[in-house]
């Protein structure tokens, strides 16, 4: 996912960042303009288009020759000092004809594009926002228009209007207004369903105010994107008409009929074709490049994380080497005996072209065979990133240092192919939101059978039987019926059971569960936790559960690793950490859980909030919010130190404090 993790899966920070960058209500348009001027592709395109327009408009003054001036001594000549771009079969100057011809072509494109944009956007907006009764009629008309083969219709229009270019291009505009209509209708519908539009309504805004303040600003950039796309397509059509000699009447030039003229003499020379082809190509490209850049600045696009996998293993920076070497001896569990052993793990991602953002820094902990470890902390602590890095699933461009050992194998630095052999068969994964964790287009049974077959190399029939068995193991009432369902047909709780079933398909030794119950109803959460605990005992799985809920830790975990701002701050058995938390943060975090607090009293809270990655202080990262902080806490980085058997704490005052004393 994105840079910071969140308790709820639907809040992907990746969405928020680009939207924030195109700033302000009117700023959205300004941001788009800035993007267009800043990116070389769109800047060059704008320059090219301006040049083409200026040359076409000024052809009468600038062009070296008239559009029909024939120089019969120099027909079909290449570039020369007299004719910079050569001449055609009648010795007419190609450069001059390109400039004059641009008028016909560009005027046609302008007419068609404006028609399509005005018709499409206005009607689309009305259909999408007002949901008028005629919406379905309008959509049907749009469907019809989009099904019409443009050029064939244009041929009949041409036959009818004796080649009236204005009417032809108006027709093109009307036909293309259908696709603009669809885009605007869909976009309006989408914005209209945004929660903030509902919020504006509950603030008392009327339809017009909502349209003006919330919907139109979001659609402005769409006008530019669609304009660019329609222009690039209609340009090709306009040139095509010219090629069939149904735009300008010869000898008046258009880009299209210049191509046609050139095509008659290609057996002699291909040259006369080159200048118009290049000009047409560049102009089409310019339009579509502007559309692309506008699109990107609207949606903000990065490479998907899903298949990412190009993680880079880097040596740990010296400054960050937080006693990684020395820690080995003080670990709660013997690394040799542990299933998973993480040492000095740091993860950073590119934040901009030049800067990197460290999300996780110097994390160390172990998970023993059959042990359940809770990775606890608030949003932005780096829990999910740690969990996913174990499986080698990181954002594109992530740099990772440290060590992740599973049994006897160092996982960090393994090539993707090797790492993939561990997934599912040694370490499996259950995600946050079961509703989006399953492949939407395949039946549940088939999804599980597929992975069973892949991991265990059995026949199809055996895989199907094993899949039903797995569904039974996760207590799905009627496995046979369930196997035939698609993911959208089942409840969240059932979907999470299915995810657990497919995680167990490869008979793994360890399970990583990233907030497995956060998205579920409380009663379902209880059942899923019970199921996980039961399966864990049955199969003596090692388990790592990422959670922000101490109740979940109390329910299923043997040990808790508390994270704060990218670091481990405490690592202790569940008995110890609930009995006597040693880090002020562990104590405060648990005290702030409303579930334990007594009714009638003011709820205890931790004031302030977790510092975001990139703003971590050099001293203790919790000092800002800590009631027990002293000057020394902020002076220097605090080490994770051993405090008693199987306990690690990152606090210089851990020895002297009684955490529950004045809470």
């Amino acid at each position, binding site marked *: 996912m994105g840079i910071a993790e969140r308790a709820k899966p639907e809040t992907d920070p990746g969405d928020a960042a680009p939207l924030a960058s195109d700033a302000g209500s009117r700023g959205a348009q300004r941001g788009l303009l800035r993007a267009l001027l800043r990116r070389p592709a769109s800047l060059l395109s704008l320059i090219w288009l301006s040049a083409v327009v200026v040359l076409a408009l000024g052809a009468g003054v600038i062009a070296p020759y008239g559009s029909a001036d024939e120089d019969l001594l120099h027909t079909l000549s290449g570039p020369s000092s007299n004719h910079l771009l050569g001449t055609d079969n009648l010795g007419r100057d190609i450069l001059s004809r390109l400039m004059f011809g641009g008028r016909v072509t560009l005027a046609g494109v302008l007419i068609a594009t404006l028609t399509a944009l005005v018709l499409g956007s206005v009607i689309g907006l009305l259909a999408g926002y007002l949901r008028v009764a005629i919406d379905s009629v309008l959509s049907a008309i749009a469907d019809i228009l989009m099904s019409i083969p443009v050029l064939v219709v244009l041929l009949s229009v041409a036959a009818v209007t004796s080649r009236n270019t204005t009417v032809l291009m108006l027709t093109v505009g009307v036909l293309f207004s259908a696709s603009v209509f669809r885009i605007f209708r869909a976009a309006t519908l989408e914005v209209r369903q945004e929660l*903030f539009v509902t919020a504006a309504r509950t603030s*008392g805004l009327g339809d017009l105010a909502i349209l003006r303040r919330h919907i139109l600003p979001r659609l402005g950039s769409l006008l530019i994107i669609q304009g660019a796309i329609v222009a690039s397509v209609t340009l090709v059509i306009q040139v095509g008409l010219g090629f069939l000699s149904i735009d300008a009447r010869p000898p008046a030039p258009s880009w299209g009929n210049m191509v046609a003229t050139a095509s008659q003499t290609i057996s002699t020379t291909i040259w006369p074709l080159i200048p118009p082809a290049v000009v047409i190509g560049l102009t089409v490209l310019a339009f579509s490049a502007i559309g692309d850049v506008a699109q990107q600045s609207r949606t903000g696009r990065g490479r998907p994380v899903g298949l990412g996998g190009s993680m880079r293993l880097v040596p740990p920076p010296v400054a960050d080497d937080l006693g990684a070497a020395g820690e080995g001896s003080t670990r709660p569990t013997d690394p040799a005996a542990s299933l998973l052993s993480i040492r000095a793990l740091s993860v950073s991602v590119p934040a901009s072209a030049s800067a990197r953002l460290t999300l996780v820094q110097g994390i160390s902990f172990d998970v023993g065979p059959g042990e359940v470890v809770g990775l606890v902390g608030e949003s932005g602590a780096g829990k999910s990133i740690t969990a996913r890095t174990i499986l080698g699933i990181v954002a594109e461009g992530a740099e990772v240092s440290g060590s992740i050992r599973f049994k006897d194998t160092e996982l960090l630095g393994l090539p993707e192919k090797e790492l993939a052999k561990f997934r599912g068969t040694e370490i499996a994964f259950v995600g946050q939101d079961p509703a989006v964790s399953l492949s939407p287009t395949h039946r549940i049974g088939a999804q599980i059978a597929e992975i069973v077959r892949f991991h265990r190399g059995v026949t199809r029939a055996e895989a199907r039987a094993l899949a039903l068995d797995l569904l039974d193991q996760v207590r799905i009432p009627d496995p046979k019926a369930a196997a035939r369902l698609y993911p959208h047909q089942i409840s969240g709780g059932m979907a999470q059971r299915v995810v657990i079933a497919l995680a167990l398909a490869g008979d793994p030794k360890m399970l990583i569960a990233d907030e497995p119950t956060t998205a579920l109803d409380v009663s379902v959460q209880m059942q899923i936790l*019970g199921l996980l605990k039961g399966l864990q005992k049955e199969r003596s799985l090692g388990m790592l559960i990422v959670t922000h809920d101490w109740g979940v830790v*109390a329910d299923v975990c043997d040990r808790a690793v508390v994270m704060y701002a990218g670091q481990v701050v405490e690592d202790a058995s569940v008995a110890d950490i609930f009995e006597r938390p040693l880090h002020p943060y562990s104590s405060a975090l648990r005290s702030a859980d409303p579930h334990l607090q007594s009714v009638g009293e003011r709820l205890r809270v931790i004031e302030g909030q*977790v510092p975001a990655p990139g703003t971590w202080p050099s001293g203790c990262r919790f000092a800002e919010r800590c009631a027990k902080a002293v000057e020394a806490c902020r002076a220097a980085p605090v080490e994770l130190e051993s405090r008693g058997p199987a306990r690690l704490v990152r606090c210089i005052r851990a020895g002297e404090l009684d955490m529950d004393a004045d809470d």
Partner: protein
Amino acid sequence: MQMTDAAPLLAVEDLSVDYHDRRGAKFRAVEGVSFEIARGETLGLVGESGSGKSTIGKAILGLVPAAGGRLRFDGEDITRCSARRRRQLTAEIQVVFQDPYGSLNPVRSIGSTLAEPLNVHGPKLATGEVRARVAEALRLVSLSPDVAERLPGEFSGGQRQRIAIARALVLRPRLIVCDEAVSSLDLSVQAQVLNLLEDFRDQLGVSYLFITHDLGVVHHIASRLAVLYRGRLVEMDATDRIWDRPQHPYTAMLQAAAPVPDPRLQAERRAAFSLRHSAFLAAQAPTEASRV
């Protein structure tokens, strides 16, 4: 109905709400629900997904039409009031939604979002006055007034939810519908927001309809609870009484379902949950017992 001080701020009488699926088939989401909220009171409306709890909130806000029954606000029947009256009512009835990421327009500054309700209601305010009211609302939720210049994208979930509360408060409404207003936040942040809501009830006399699935959280803020299951009220009583002795098997199961951050207590609670869950299933019709 005459208006007296004893009249509840909001009275929901026998409310039913229908939804229609794409094929036009009718589906009853809320069936015959009645409750009242007094001035300065917080009523907790508890239920899981599909219980119809958010639908009731939407009906009160006028976002979905009632199929039957009546809604009275301060004695006035608002069940089918005009669109104009509905807009006026937004000054009295406000809402905080669950999702702090979706409820703020990402390309509008915080100040502009907060000023929005001020600009459409009541007498036209001078720019300076609007700014002052916005700053005051931000201060109420412990945010600095210069936050107004910034965009929602720069804030964490907890901060955004404060901003959403500030928007709800800026018109000084008498009722705020909190639709899972803290559910998407870290538990530690939920406590902050709950305290904030409690302060406003004490200082400003606001009433709340606090819609949630988490019985463990709502009993801190609500004096009375109404428990919903599949569109119907199954239990309604003072919070203490429900918490101490839940009557309906569903309520009993819900109560045991919120995990406590204490291994010993949690072990007891899990044992209780298993018993109550089976009891609840047994109380259901046999056909429903198979699907949970």
